[in-house]
């Protein structure tokens, strides 16, 4: 079981974008994702729903090429108007068959 090198893309965004983001990930080539609610503070003020739902953190394991596509798409579509940060790091993944 040799691990392969993939990108772990993490997106932290306001709750209201949930459906939108997960649909985008699928469209851009991610095979799956994990999603959880998180708390925190940032440079933006009130979030539209922050008393009904917390922020979400979406994580997905993808190839470097897909990761780049995702980050570019996020920057173009959301950075201007929404509270959202995204980052990618290199990770070693076992069970590589699910992702390659």
């Amino acid at each position: 079981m040799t691990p392969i090198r993939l990108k772990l893309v993490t997106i932290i965004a306001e709750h209201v974008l949930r459906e939108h983001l997960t649909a985008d990930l699928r469209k851009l080539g991610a095979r799956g994702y994990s999603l959880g609610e998180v708390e925190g503070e940032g440079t933006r003020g009130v979030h539209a729903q922050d008393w009904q739902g917390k922020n979400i953190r979406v994580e997905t394991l993808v190839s470097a090429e897909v990761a780049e596509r995702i980050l570019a798409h996020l920057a173009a579509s959301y950075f201007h108007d929404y509270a959202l940060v995204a980052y990618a790091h290199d990770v070693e993944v076992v069970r590589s068959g699910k992702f390659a």
Partner: protein
Amino acid sequence: MTTADLLRANLLSPIALSFALGMGARAVRSEFSLPKDIYLGLSIFLLWALGLQGGAELREASLTAIAWPALATLGLGVATPISAYLVVRKVGRFSAADAAAIAAHYGSVSAVTYIAATTFAKSQGMEPEGFMPTLLTLLEAPGIQVALLIGVVQAGGHGRPLREVLHEVFTGRTMVLLVGGLLVGFIMGHENWAVIEPFYNTKGAVFRGALCLFMLEMGVVAAARLGDLRKVGGFLLGFGLGMPLVHGALGAWVGTLAGLSVGGATVLAAMAASASYIAAPPAVRLTLPEANPTFYLTSALVITFPFNLLVGIPIYFRLASWFGGTP
């Protein structure tokens, strides 16, 4: 009862006191707050009960009795977002997107304000019509739609397509529970309703007790946002207090003209005066992303909601009594 007596009676109601305690708890930085899931569960119970009882009582109403009030309600649903938009845009000189975002909140309804107004009218011996929940659902959606349309046209909104957002407004929690409840309550008939009534009756102990719990959390939530008052400026503060009075007076007048009782006109006035903070924020956030959430959330939730709850409702009751000729 004088207006002062009405105000006092309202302030000493369990609903208002629970809300005040929630605010107080937050003010002294208590760690108290209702767990999210319980809060959500309570809101589901309240809306579902409203829908069911409304449906059961709708069976007893004649079509002629409900036709004019329904038309009046739709008229209010179109008029209130337009008036709110014009005031914020022309007088407050806010951007088109911000003005439309705020208008969407003031065009729609706060279900909690509706419940509080119903409870208050009943406590004054002025039973509102049984079909009021139907009017609530009629007013819920158009206000948001009209304002979002204005926003998309005026500000050239670059958020999600309006069609998608409208789908969300119509399939949201409030609409499903209210409209679904109306249907189920209507279909099940009197005998079945009688069995579950003790649990769901909106005059009953269970419903009012649950509402008090819910109000505790609303107080905490509103108080948590108090600091944002400094960010929104004097205009929105005045708007958040003045607009409900204008819309409330309009609602009481139109409701009386449409043939509603004093209780019914009070509730319609409170609905027109209220600003949504459950259905409207996500819809607005997605359609008009460039609008600043601090403006619309603070005015709807921190200014207008407590104002209506504590002061507005007795005033609308007084106005409705006056229009209805029972001073």
